[in-house]
Structures are given as C-alpha cells and as structure tokens.
C-alpha cells in the first residue's frame, strides 16, 4: 500500500511537470515585467501590457529575436511599489528572465529600478517619467517617456499667451505627480505666473470637494492636476458639482485616455492634458499599430499602450545591436541607441533619462480627443476658454 502511494506520488509529480503551464523551451528569450492589473493604476497598466504583448506577437511572427522565440512572463503589482519590488526580485532570481521591461507608474518604477540596479540588470522603463528616478546614479534604468517635469509646459505657455496669471495646482503625493508639480512651479516662475493654491492628496483620495471649495475661493485662471486617471475623472466631476470654473483645466494623466471621455461624457469637453503619444502622430508604424490594436482590443490605443509597444521595439533594437541578451552588452547598446519607433524617438542621456522624445498636449473637443499642441502636429485648434458649467 505504502509503495503504491509513493508510486502514485511520483506519478503525480511527473504529470505535474509535464502539464505545468510554464513551458519554457531552452531556446526561448524570456522577457519579464510586472504592471498594475488591479488597484489605482490598473487601467493604464493593462494598456501598457497589451501594447507590449502586441510587440511580442509581432516579433515572434517575424521569426523571433536572434532567431529565438520571445516569451513574456508578467505579474500584477497591484499598483503597489512594495509588491513591484518583490516581483522584480522574483523575475530576476526565480524566473531567471533574459530581459526586463519596467512596470507602470513612476511610483512602482522607483522601487523596481532599485531591484534591477541591485542585480545590475538593464531595464527598459516604459510608463515612468519622474526625473527623480534617474537622479540616483543608477546605470540600468532606461526611460521611454518624456519627463514629468515637462508635462505642463505648453499649457502654462498657452496661459501666459492668453494673459492668465493665477494657477491652482493639485497633485497626488507620489513620485510622478510631484515631479509634474515641480515642473509646473518652475515653469510658472519662469513665465511670471503665480501658483495661488497648492495641495497634495493621497493615492486613495476619491473626494475632492473640500479642496475644490478652497480652490474656488482663490479664483484661479488655470487649474492643473498632477493626476492619474481615477483622480482626474473624480476631480472634474466634483468641479462641476461645486461649479468650480477656470479658463483652463489640465491634467497629467487622464484626458489622454479614452476612459476620460467615457466616464465624464460631455463634462470632459474642453479639458486639456498631456500625452506621450497619440495614434495620429506621424511616426513610422504608429497608424498600423493603432489599427491592429483596435482590431484586437476593441478600442484605440492610448499612449500607455503605445509606450508598451514602443518599449518592445527599443528592447528589440538594443538586443539586435548587441547581438546577444548578455546584460552588459544590452546595457551598453540601450545607452547608445538613437532610434525612432512607432512611439517616437528614443535617446537617453548618461543616466538613462529620456531626452529625445517631445511631449504633446490633447484636448477633448466634441466628445473626441485631439492633439492641440504643439501646433505642427495638432489635429485641431485649442478651444479657449473652458466653457462655464452653466453655459453648456
């Protein structure tokens, strides 16, 4: 009986190994990433992953990378930096991945990049833009996004050109929104505008009414949010409820995503925001990517998806240039690469910080998202000023 039991146990172990879902052929190139699939950054994280997945499919259809198939291992970091750090540790030590893609959000990237640095493992970081990430002397984090500090530059310039003076600035208390805010303050000072109201809020904040009542008392001309999607939507909704009015409303993350318009409907009208990328930009392969993405996932890609896709191409170019997945060689080629992908130009400085890619600005006009700044790539003219709630 005992013998039969142990035989049974042995058989089940063998069976488990055979049907185990991790079918990694010795020759596969394994790319690891963690993105937020739950929690506050879920929507944007999921988009980034889907964009990246699309690159994986394409590269495999083209015969793989260095003649090998690419396999993606991904986890959900729950929008939490501490979970992200654990997962990158796992990707590097347990899963023994060959290449790394960064998580979504500057917050989680701060933690994940520390793990990558510890293992001296180069990581292509899509979805992070706070320059703080590249100010720690790390050698393994290579950014794709235009820096957060530049997110509101042209919005403030627009305000200046229209003769506006007073800015109300609100932002989440994590790395990226704080970087956006510090950029706003620098730019405002440079152009002679005043930040008349400034307040941070927590990652879990859903109620901004008390804040809005205070902002209202300051009568700002421009309201700028260093935000992510959920907070920008909640803020606009409550701005309407409290009849907060300003000539310009602009948010860091939010208006650049289709969800912003879906959630707010007509109340999104006139709201401006930053975008890293739009399907309408004249970039090689952007249009094709956008069409394929729409066919596969049922909606147009936003810039988070574009970033994931672009990260794949940057990684591919770096590996090809290095002709190997050797960490040192990939790191060297990521540092010196200067290419234009469907996501835009990739060129980093000595710290790995993105310096080649410009920023773009969108505005919601008649229920659609249009690029309005800079003028040379605009698909519509800026609508100014923001229409008062009572007159809509």
């Amino acid at each position, binding site marked *: 009986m005992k013998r039969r039991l142990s035989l049974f146990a042995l058989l089940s172990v063998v069976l488990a190994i055979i049907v185990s879902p991790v079918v990694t052929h010795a020759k596969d190139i394994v790319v690891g990433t963690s993105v937020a699939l739950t929690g506050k950054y879920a929507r944007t994280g999921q988009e980034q992953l889907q964009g990246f997945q699309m690159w994986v499919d394409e590269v495999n259809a083209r015969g793989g990378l260095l003649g090998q198939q690419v396999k993606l291992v991904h986890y959900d970091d729950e929008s939490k930096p501490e979970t992200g750090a654990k997962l990158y540790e796992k990707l590097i030590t347990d899963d023994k991945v060959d290449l790394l893609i960064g998580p979504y959000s500057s917050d989680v990237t701060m933690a994940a990049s520390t793990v990558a640095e510890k293992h001296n493992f180069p990581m292509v970081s899509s979805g992070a833009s706070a320059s703080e990430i590249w100010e720690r002397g790390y050698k393994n984090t290579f950014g794709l996004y235009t820096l957060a500090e530049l997110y509101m530059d042209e919005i403030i310039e627009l305000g200046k050109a229209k003769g506006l003076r007073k800015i109300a600035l609100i932002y989440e208390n994590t790395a990226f929104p704080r970087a956006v805010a510090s950029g706003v303050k620098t730019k405002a000072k440079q152009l002679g505008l005043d930040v008349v109201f400034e307040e941070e809020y927590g990652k879990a904040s*859903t109620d901004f009414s008390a804040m809005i*009542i205070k902002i209202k008392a300051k009568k700002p001309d421009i309201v700028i949010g260093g935000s992510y999607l959920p907070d920008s939507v909640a803020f606009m909704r409550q701005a309407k*409820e409290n009849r907060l009015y300003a000539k310009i409303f602009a948010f860091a993350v939010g208006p650049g995503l289709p969800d912003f318009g879906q959630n707010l409907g007509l109340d999104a009208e006139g709201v401006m925001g930053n975008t890293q990328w739009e399907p309408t930009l004249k970039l090689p392969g952007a249009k094709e990517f956008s069409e394929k993405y729409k066919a596969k996932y049922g909606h147009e890609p936003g810039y988070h998806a574009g970033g994931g896709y672009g990260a794949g191409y940057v990684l591919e170019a770096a590996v090809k240039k290095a002709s190997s997945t050797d960490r040192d060689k990939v790191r060297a080629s990521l540092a010196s690469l200067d290419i234009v992908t469907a996501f835009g130009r990739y060129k980093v400085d000595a710290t790995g910080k993105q310096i080649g890619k410009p920023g773009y600005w969108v505005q919601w006009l008649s229920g659609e998202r249009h690029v309005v700044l800079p003028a040379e790539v605009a698909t519509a003219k800026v609508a100014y000023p923001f229409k008062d709630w009572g007159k809509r």
Partner: protein
Amino acid sequence: MELLEPDILLQLLIGGLLAGMLYALLACGLNLVFGVMRVINLAHAELMLVGAFGAYVLFTIFGLHPLVSLLLIVPVLFIAGYYLQSVLIERVVERPMLTSLLATYGLSIILINVGLLLFSADFKSVPVLQGSFLIGELTVSKPRVTAGVISLLLTVGVYLFLERSHLGKAIRAVSEHAQVAAICGIDVRKIRMLTFGMAAAMAGAAGVMLSVIYSFWPGSGIDFIQKCFAIIIIGGMGNFLGALYGGILLGVVEAFVGGFASTQWAEAVAYLLLVTVLLIRPTGLKGVARA
C-alpha cells in the same frame, strides 16, 4: 483668511453632512449585525459594492436610473443576505471571534474576485444626476444631496422599525440577550436571518447611492470598511444610533479637516477621531460594547 467666510463654512458643513449620511447608512448595517450576533462582517463593504455594480449593470444594460434600481436592489440584497445568514454566517455565530472574522473575510475575497472577473479592475461610474443647483451662493451637488437624503431616510426608517415594530423589538431583544429572548419564545435563528438580510439591504442601498457619487471598482471596499470600523467604535459597538451619529460626525469632521488642513489629513481623520473618542469615552459615544 477667506476660509472663515460663512458661506465657505456652510458649504463645507453641507458637504460633510451629506457624506456622513452615506457613511451612517453603511455603518449602521455593520453595527446592527454586530449588535445582534457579535459578528464583525468584513464583507459588508463588498455587499455595498454588489449594490453599486448592480446599479451600474442596470444602468448600462437597461438604462435604469439608480433611484429606480434601488427598488430592485434593496429587496434582492435582503433576500441574498437572509440566505447568506442561514448558509454561512449562522454557522459562525457564537463561535470564537476569529472564526467569524475568517469566514466573512473569505466571503469578501470571493466577492472581490468575482467582481474582478466580471467587471475587471477598471473604475466604473453611473453618469446620472450630475451637476448642482444653487441656493443663493451655495452650490448643492445633485448626486450628493440625493444620496445623502435617501441614506438618512433609510437609516431613520430602519431605526424606527427597530424601535416601534414588533419584529424590531424582537431584534433588539436578541441583541440584548439571545438566550433570554429564546426563552421568551423568539425564534432567534429567524431573527438573525432577518437582521443580516436588513444589513445586506442597507449595504446594497448605500452602494447604489455610492454609485451616483463616486467612481468604484471591485477593490473599493477597503476604504469604506476601514471608515466603518472607526465609525462603529466611535459611536459604540453594536449601537445603531451610535453608528448614525458616528457616521455623520466623521463626514463633517472630514470635510472641515479637508477644508482647513488638507485632503490628505482628511483621510487620517477617522483614526484620529477614533483614538480621541477611545481616550475620552472608551465605550464610544453611545456606550454598549459588551462582547
């Protein structure tokens, strides 16, 4: 300082009262269950989200206004709660506290994950009742005033039911002393089922009200359940009116702290208030708390 102008103070007060009424509706249900069976229902906020997603589904598929779906969701959750009690909760009543905590925690995990499967982790909202109306200089948000007033009516309604009706008296009797109530001929098991049904219905109603104010996703419960814990401890564990007062108090204090300090501080208020009340009145505002 412009913050001290009367209309700003009044504006903050109204916002706080309205938010507090919703908190109260949710917390009263939680406290009712605790009062009657000494079970802390960790899945209470998830039952609320069942209501919120119910309103979302009925709105997106059938175009039903949340105020109409309220009439459907409340009875459905009552029945669901009634049977949930007989199938699950009844088994952990009068057992060590940890047993019921684990059982309801498990239930909340199941509900969250079913929610994630059905609705993904995206934020949802029900875009009706938007905007506000003006009373003089005051702006009164339409969704908040609707949610606040309905929540208050429901809470007061349940309170009157508990105080005045025969069944309500039976519920209070079981809450006082289950054994004595049983000796007096009260079907304790039935009363518990009724109580849990009512609490689930209150949570569901709070969810429908929540859906017109905030965006939500299947994991939103945690923020609310934490506030509810603070509220019932502030108000007095097991005391229905205590939770009502505690909820409104929390809403108002949050609004004022948000106004005078910052929104970040407003999120910590529940716990600061909790510590303060425990220091001054360890049994909570309305006493009780014999476990």
